[in-house]
């Protein structure tokens, strides 16, 4: 879910324009300026990949591009960090595959 409330600790901000992205083929609404990570978490999607050895689910951990846990495929480009990549209209995100760099 998105935070809509504004307070003195969280001053008001207007998101960018609404865009439609697809996560594993399912459409969802996101806003320009959001990362893939934020858009997916806002839609309640927390699993970004499964590990190659034990098939265990992984999601956002460090949120600043350090841990590489949130790797997804974006428009056929493998191993994109969801926490560092902003959404755009018509973006296709795949969480199913495991890609090593």
């Amino acid at each position, binding site marked *: 879910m998105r*935070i809509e409330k504004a307070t003195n600790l969280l001053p008001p901000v207007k998101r960018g324009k609404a865009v439609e992205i697809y996560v594993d083929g399912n459409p969802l609404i996101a806003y320009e300026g959001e990362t893939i990570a934020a858009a997916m978490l806002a839609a309640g999607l927390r699993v970004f990949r499964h590990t190659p050895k034990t098939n265990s689910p992984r999601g*956002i951990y460090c949120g600043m591009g350090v841990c590489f846990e949130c790797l997804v495929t974006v428009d056929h480009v493998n191993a994109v960090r969801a926490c560092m990549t902003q959404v755009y209209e018509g973006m296709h995100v795949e969480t199913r595959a495991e890609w090593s760099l």
Partner: protein
Amino acid sequence: MSTDIQLAVIGAGPAGLEAALTASEYGVDVVLIDGSPQAGGQYYQQFPEPFEAGSNTKTSVQKEAQLLIHMVESAPIRRLYNTLVWGAFTRPDDPLYTLALYGPDAPAQLRAHAVIIASGAYDFPLPFPGWTLPGVFTAGAAQGLIKNQRVFPGQRVLISGSGPLQLATAAELIHAGVEVAAVLESSQPVWNGLRNLPAAWGQWGRMAEGGEYSYAMLRSRTPYRLGWSVVAAHGDTDVEEAVIARLSPDGHPIPGSQETLAVDTIITGFGLIPNTGLSRMLGCKHIQRQGQTGWIPERDKIFQTTLPGLFVVGDAAGIGGAELARLEGQVAGLAVAQRLQQISDGQLNTAYQRIQPALKRQQRFARFLENVFAPLPGLTAIPDETTVICRCEEVTLGQIREAVHMGARSVNEVKMLTRTGMGNCQGRICELWVARMIQRILDDPTVTLDSLGAFTVRPPLQPLPVSALALAAESNDEP
């Protein structure tokens, strides 16, 4: 093709912005490099460009960030944002530093007479059974999501860690309307006054909203427990519950004290690790210092490392907070101006004397915080044999134990036997915990974090597309 410049500043957070601005003011030709599309780093993180913030409603930190960034962007400083520095080298026959870059506007290489590294820090993780489940976030991740993306990490949250940042995270979550099940502070304050720390933290000038933090917690009656930590997470595909335990004064979970909380999100914040990838690749001397988590570069009083012309400032050289980072940036900027003969020794001295009282004050404050909130040694008892320590290569404590039984006595030897630290994050998350696990296994006082060593840092510092490396190889071939 490579370009020669006077000064490269790496990192556009509080330290790097000040360093670039100061050096530029004294006539140094500066290139400021940052991996993000915008300046600010983590502490001064800006809203993404498509977001529109109201101009009169910013927090004090946002206003301060805006002013400093505006000054830098009005100065004759060449800015290379969206640019990764994936390698840094010295050559025996060349007094200049060579930086290997990757980014849309960046040359493949830069040669610089002086380099100021201001690469900041990242969260010190806490490995515990279940910590790889989606729904476990670092404090840094949670802060970014709430403040800059305005997205909830979850509905019912446990915050566990150490230090003042936890209260900021808690207050922001409460303001956003998230239920905070509890805030656990692992450290057990040594004097009673510290029981009132939430209020005392309000005095912490830089986090000027500190009073607001404790007020938000009091008003929402959020439980604040001293001497507790998360010790496990349970769930099928993501977090469904957290197990917490009372800790002994040195951080060992006390058997029988466990409680279970139904939460969907766990945020851990046990302090920060200086980001030393580049300074280690360059090979200046690094040390461990009581109170700091991880390796830090050894520096003199103008923040020069053991390599002449290489400076490290801000949290990248030891966690001290934004205000100290800014002052260190100013000193290093001046020192480079003097080194490149833009100012005299006398001018440098005069300016240094002017900055020194504030610098001393911030250093004292940083030492106080690090002594009270350093990660407790007993936390190393939390992982069990099946707990993953290296998340990338899925190496467990049990596998590290096998490697130690085979004779591995350093983090690099464990790496060779188990692949810890060889995955995508290149050991940034696990390095300090691999060392702590070897220490726990050997249980020998002569085995220190110093003697266990550090992972060898090799280029590329970040995983890069192969095309970028090919381009770099080509540019190296040029005469």
